[in-house]
């Protein structure tokens, strides 16, 4: 019997799959807000369960097997070791009631405290003796980093301060990673895993939320300025990061083997709504050498496909990203300038798998009518699914409070597309 993994592998290898492969929850950029996960469990009449938050930064709800089946999901995440805040996810879980009234499960080591202004803060590695690393505002549905930027002397900047979080994996971590990969493999779905330390300059990681006392350049704007003003410093950070990542790749390959199908290499966003975030020269000079090294090793030594996430209007960068060996692009933000689905498919479709692009999460899915959702899903499937190279996903995580009727329309439209003409 054909498995979810089979259809995803067909797509990744640019063969026409028997159905549109679907991902919800395979990565931290293709998941669903916990409120949507709970609503969909109700929609499908599944057993009442408190939703587990495996990624609290974006409040992503873990999509359990029964919901995956109900939604027709074909890919799953290999559970990471810890959250963005450095909380271990392997231990017990505890309940936490959000301000919007939903009770969720969070790792038992995670510490959340209410603030005077009605919001919440979270602490790095659950340590309340150091300043909080993230904040959820009183009416917010997500956490955002608290910038803990210490003063620094421009002439004394030490790249090792920005690489404290990148370490070679120890035996116990490797054993847990291997067990998580095996558990994911046993699901029969395609397994997607995050690689440790290969996110070069991902702005979500720059503030060092998992660190108790981050040093170096941790302010978001300061980091962006470094790209233009301190390229040598950025290179030194990336050099060290890449060195550790290469070491870890070898260790991972030895322990995980073929239990991964797709590896999430880097989530650095290179696009805004209307343009790229930096010049093509900066991409080529600062980032591509590292991507190339990582992707080359993976392709020469494993069967894993490499996954690049970048929001925004990045069409001018796609040729370069394909050129350095990325197999998969996510989230394919079709609403951004130049990211026309037909153009992307025609130009890159034979060389790149589009993991996303299925529905606009800025407008259509949260604010549109169910018939508008249906129309867009059908159109995107028609364009992207031709000859494989497409895994359906919303354009980035499904946002909080997305109407359940729209999610139902989305899933129905995929079924309609799959059954049309059969």
């Amino acid at each position, binding site marked *: 019997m054909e498995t979810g993994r089979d259809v995803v592998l067909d797509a990744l290898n640019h063969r026409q799959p028997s159905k549109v492969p679907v991902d919800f929850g395979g990565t931290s950029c293709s998941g669903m807000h916990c409120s949507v996960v709970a609503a969909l469990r109700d929609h499908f009449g599944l057993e009442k369960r408190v939703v587990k938050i495996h990624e609290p930064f974006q409040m992503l709800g873990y999509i359990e097997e029964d919901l995956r089946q109900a939604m027709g999901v074909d890919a799953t995440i290999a559970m990471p070791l810890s959250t963005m805040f450095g909380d271990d996810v392997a231990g017990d879980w505890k309940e936490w009631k959000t301000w919007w009234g939903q009770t969720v499960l969070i790792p038992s080591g995670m510490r959340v405290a209410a603030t005077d202004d009605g919001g919440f803060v979270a602490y790095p590695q659950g340590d309340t003796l150091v300043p909080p690393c993230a904040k959820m505002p009183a009416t*917010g549905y997500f956490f955002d980093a608290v910038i803990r930027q210490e003063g620094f002397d421009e002439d004394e900047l030490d790249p090792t301060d920005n690489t404290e979080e990148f370490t070679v994996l120890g035996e116990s971590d490797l054993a847990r990673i291997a067990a998580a990969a095996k558990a994911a493999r046993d699901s029969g779905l395609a397994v997607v895993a995050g690689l440790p330390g290969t996110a070069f300059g991902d702005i979500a990681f720059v503030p060092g939320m998992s660190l108790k006392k981050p040093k170096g350049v941790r302010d*978001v704007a300061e980091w*962006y300025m470094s790209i*233009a003003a301190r390229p040598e410093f950025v290179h030194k950070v990336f050099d060290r990061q890449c060195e550790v990542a290469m070491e870890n790749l070898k260790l991972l390959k030895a322990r995980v083997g073929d239990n991964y199908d797709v590896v999430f290499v880097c989530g650095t966003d290179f696009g805004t709504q209307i*343009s790229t975030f930096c010049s093509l020269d900066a991409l080529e000079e600062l980032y591509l050498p590292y991507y190339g090294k990582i992707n080359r090793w993976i392709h020469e030594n494993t069967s894993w496909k490499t996954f690049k996430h970048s929001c925004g209007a990045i069409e001018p960068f796609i040729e370069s990203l394909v050129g350095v060996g990325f197999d998969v692009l996510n989230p394919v933000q079709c609403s951004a300038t130049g990211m026309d689905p037909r153009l992307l498919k025609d130009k890159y479709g034979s060389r790149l798998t589009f993991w996303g692009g299925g529905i606009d999460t800025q407008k259509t899915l949260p604010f549109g009518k169910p018939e508008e959702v249906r129309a867009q899903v059908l159109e995107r499937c028609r364009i992207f699914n031709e000859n494989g190279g497409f895994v359906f996903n919303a354009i980035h995580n499904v946002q909080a409070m997305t109407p359940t009727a729209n999610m139902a329309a989305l899933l129905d439209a995929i079924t309609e597309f799959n059954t049309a003409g059969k």
Partner: protein
Amino acid sequence: MADLDQISEMLQKGKAKEVERLVGEALVEGLNVKEILEKGLIAGMGIIGEKFKNNQVYVPEVLIAARAMNKGMTILEPAMVKAGVEPLGTVVIGTVSGDLHDIGKNLVCMMFKGAGFKVVDLGTDVSPEKFAAAAKENRACLVGLSALLTTTMPAMKDCVDLLKTQGGVKVIIGGAPVTQAYADEIGANGYSPDAASAVELGKKLIGAA
């Protein structure tokens, strides 16, 4: 002799220390304060804004240029006060309730400053009441609202509704999920897709274009 073109040039390159030095020298040499501001700093930021709009420079370059402008302004501001140089107007800017994202909002602040406006930056997670109070207190001609999240866009409408009751102030909105259609829907006076265009829009709305 201090060269105002050089101030503009150094600003565009993000050379903060150079801009600071050159503005200082221009002041010592007794150059007209308004000319230093307009032909040096504002001219430089104007070029950066135009290049940003045309994808000739990007966020990192705008940030370092703005940092250089701020250095120059720190030196120039006391002299501006002394010489009675008035800003083009006052604009109150912030990210709406529930939203902590500020890169886009900060870029808009920098562009308005760089165009000669007085900017009151309210930061992030700003309530409609706080926007309204700040607009009143500072006699703002413009209020700029930013939102990155679909879940926080509705807070823009609350702000627009409240600010309308005060009258006299134009409200402009921006942020990744925001569109002209949404601005029209909630009754904002305008929408801008990028930071440089926000200044053009603001100037037009207050009749300073």
